[in-house]
């Protein structure tokens, strides 16, 4: 299990190599990429920022939870920070498991929890030159801990 916030490009092949073990019969790689349109607005890029120390801790917690729930310790997550352009990988999750069901479940759990809990923010840059902070799943967490 490993997770990193990185300021440079994510080497997805290295992530796959990292989770490869003879005991695993299923390997999944999830890659989140910067989309060219968000909510009907053309996007030129996204600037990611984070509460770095907490984000690292929170991702590590999520991976530990996934490992316990779904029975594999072969999970590696990298999330990129800084300026990204369209098509760049912002997050990559490699999961390997003895069985495909566990691999899909663990991968899904990690990305869904990451989007709900990890203090990372994006400032979208639009074609018209404007910028806006993107709000997302935060309210659900707010409800949960109120």
């Amino acid at each position, binding site marked *: 299990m490993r997770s990193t916030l990185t300021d440079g490009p994510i080497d997805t092949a290295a992530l796959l190599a990292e989770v490869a073990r003879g005991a695993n019969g299923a390997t999944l790689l999830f890659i*989140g990429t910067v989309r060219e349109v968000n909510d009907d607005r053309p996007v030129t890029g996204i600037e*990611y*920022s*984070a*509460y770095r*120390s*907490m*984000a690292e*801790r*929170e991702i590590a917690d999520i991976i530990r939870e996934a490992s316990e729930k779904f029975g594999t310790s072969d999970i590696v997550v990298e*999330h990129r920070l800084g300026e990204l352009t369209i098509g760049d990988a*912002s*997050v990559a999750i490699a999961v390997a498991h003895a069985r495909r069901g566990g691999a899909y479940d663990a991968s899904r759990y990690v*990305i869904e929890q*990451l*989007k*709900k*809990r*990890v*203090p*990372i*923010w*994006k*400032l979208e840059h639009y074609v018209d030159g404007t910028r806006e*902070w*993107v*709000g*997302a*799943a*935060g*309210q659900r*967490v*707010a409800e949960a*801990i*109120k």
Partner: protein
Amino acid sequence: MTVTVLLFASYADTLGKSQLELDLTSGATVSEVLGHVRAMPGAERLPPAPLVAVNERYARRDQVLIAGDEVAIIPPVAGG
């Protein structure tokens, strides 16, 4: 006692700073920190119940703080 307050992303933009020190009375809670933040210029644009973390853990409004705590006001997260 002094606690450090961290502001991020849209909240840092709205309030014009990313960090401040607050001097609070002993036994103060997260709610009192939010009260101070709400008194800052621009704070009217914050939501009614923003997320808060104390020492990197999500915290409730009634959590009692101790000197040196790091209280972060967390905007809606948008990772991935």
